[in-house]
């Protein structure tokens, strides 16, 4: 037998059919309960809290017969649930996901209804995560709004929330994928960035995405932005030479909806000329030529700057 009570409630438990004045013993999770909590054979629990959840048993005084047993679950009624609906695979469909702003400590059940105009639509629940379900668009380009109502119920109460939205308002792609940034050889101020449409976006040809690229050197906080209406690559031409950059990309349907979250950040540093080793190389060349004048360093060895060569 399960018994649910609100946090802060006063709880009275009778020892089954035993009279008020019968001699009894109460235990909580197998531990005797102090007589101060008894009123006759009744168990009185004042202002219960979560820690008082557990199994309560009542035994007849002399025979130790179990006369009553219950499992007490202390919790709270559900607050208004937080509901979010989004289409990251437009125009296939959209999903709704939800959570409770605060835990209730007792089991809750959720019921979702999706109405489009006069039609009730099926929301196919995901096995995992449990608090999400998917709706397939039966109609596209509709001016009729969708109304989604989520009701949450538990033993202590019930609550609900409702969202009303247009088909296009909830379109938000996933971030672009496979973002790659590379230096451009012989171009100290360029970085080549490429990426792919999110794999969840089903038809980029008919529902093209546009992109937003942001980049900054690690040494600065200020991002630079560029919006790109087609294509999945861009060459940054104003990078600071030699500075490591952090780069991210976001996506949006060309015509509707909102921007995706930023993609995973990638790092890259523009191409830099090979450093010239002026000191050590010059000395080695000098000493070698003094002792073995017939052996010259192969041209492929790092050639010192002419000015730096001594006595050659």
């Amino acid at each position, binding site marked *: 037998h399960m018994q649910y009570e609100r946090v802060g409630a006063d709880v009275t438990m009778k020892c089954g059919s035993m009279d008020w004045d019968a001699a009894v013993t109460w235990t909580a999770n197998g531990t005797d309960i102090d007589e101060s909590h008894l009123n006759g054979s009744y168990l009185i629990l004042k202002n219960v809290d979560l820690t008082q959840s557990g199994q309560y048993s009542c035994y007849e005084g002399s025979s130790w017969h179990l006369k009553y047993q219950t499992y007490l679950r202390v919790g709270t009624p559900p607050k208004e649930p937080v509901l979010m609906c989004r289409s990251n695979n437009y*125009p296939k469909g959209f999903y709704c996901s939800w959570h409770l702003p605060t835990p209730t400590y007792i089991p809750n059940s959720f019921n979702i209804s999706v109405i489009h105009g006069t039609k009730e639509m099926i929301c196919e629940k995901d096995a995992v995560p449990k608090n999400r379900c998917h709706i397939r668009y*039966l*109609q*596209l*380009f*509709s*001016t*009729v*709004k969708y109304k989604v109502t989520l009701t949450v119920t538990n033993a202590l109460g019930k609550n609900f929330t409702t969202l009303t939205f247009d088909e*296009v308002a909830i379109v938000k792609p996933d971030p672009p994928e496979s973002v790659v940034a590379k230096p451009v050889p012989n171009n100290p101020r360029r970085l080549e960035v490429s990426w792919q449409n999110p794999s969840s976006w089903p*038809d980029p*040809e*008919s*529902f*093209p995405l546009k992109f937003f690229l942001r980049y900054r050197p690690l040494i600065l906080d200020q991002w630079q932005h560029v919006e790109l209406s087609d294509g999945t690559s861009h060459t940054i031409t104003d990078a600071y030479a030699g500075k490591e950059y952090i780069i991210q990309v976001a996506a949006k349907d060309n*015509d*509707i909806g909102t921007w995706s979250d930023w993609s995973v950040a990638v790092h890259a540093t523009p191409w830099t000329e090979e450093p010239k080793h002026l000191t050590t190389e010059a000395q080695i060349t000098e000493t070698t030529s003094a002792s073995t004048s017939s052996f010259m360093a192969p041209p492929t060895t790092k050639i010192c700057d002419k000015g730096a060569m001594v006595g050659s």
Partner: protein
Amino acid sequence: MAGADSPSTALRRRDLCTRGIRLVGKMRSDVIDLLDTYVERQGLDASASVAAVEGVPPAAVERWDEQTGTQRLLENLAAYRAFRALLAQMLEEQREQLGEAGAALGRALAAVLLQVSAFTYHLEELLRLESRSPPSEEGDGPPPRPPLSLFEQKLRGLGVLRELAQWALRSARDLRQLAKPSPGTGSAPGLAESP
């Protein structure tokens, strides 16, 4: 079922589709601006819900991805012909209601009407490209209806513009579908079969 296109037809269609997408994109942004002006000018509530307006072709469509190219073009053409008549009517009504005070709204309405007419012609051209003569327009005008109250006229106008904005969105997608090269051949499929 028409076979795949000749390269020149495919190229021509792709060009017409690309230009059509640009035209309808511009039209949509103008309609959205016009909606703001219209709501403000007519003293309406932007969030007012307007039931389906009789005679206004709904953009909503089921199984959109299964439509053939010809279906897309024919439905688009019927819709924009209807909008051409509806906008002309709105322009007339608006002049009567607002007179000179509504000149700006009138110009905006006229500009959108012009674009709708241009796009209608564009669709007819696309159909002709497939050697399909566009259906005749007799009897296409809006059905005679009982006179509406001033408020009903305004609400109706709101419904027309909202639906037109949705159609502009749909048309861009339709044209992109039409412009898609068919798998393998690299040339756009014959209209009848393009999904």
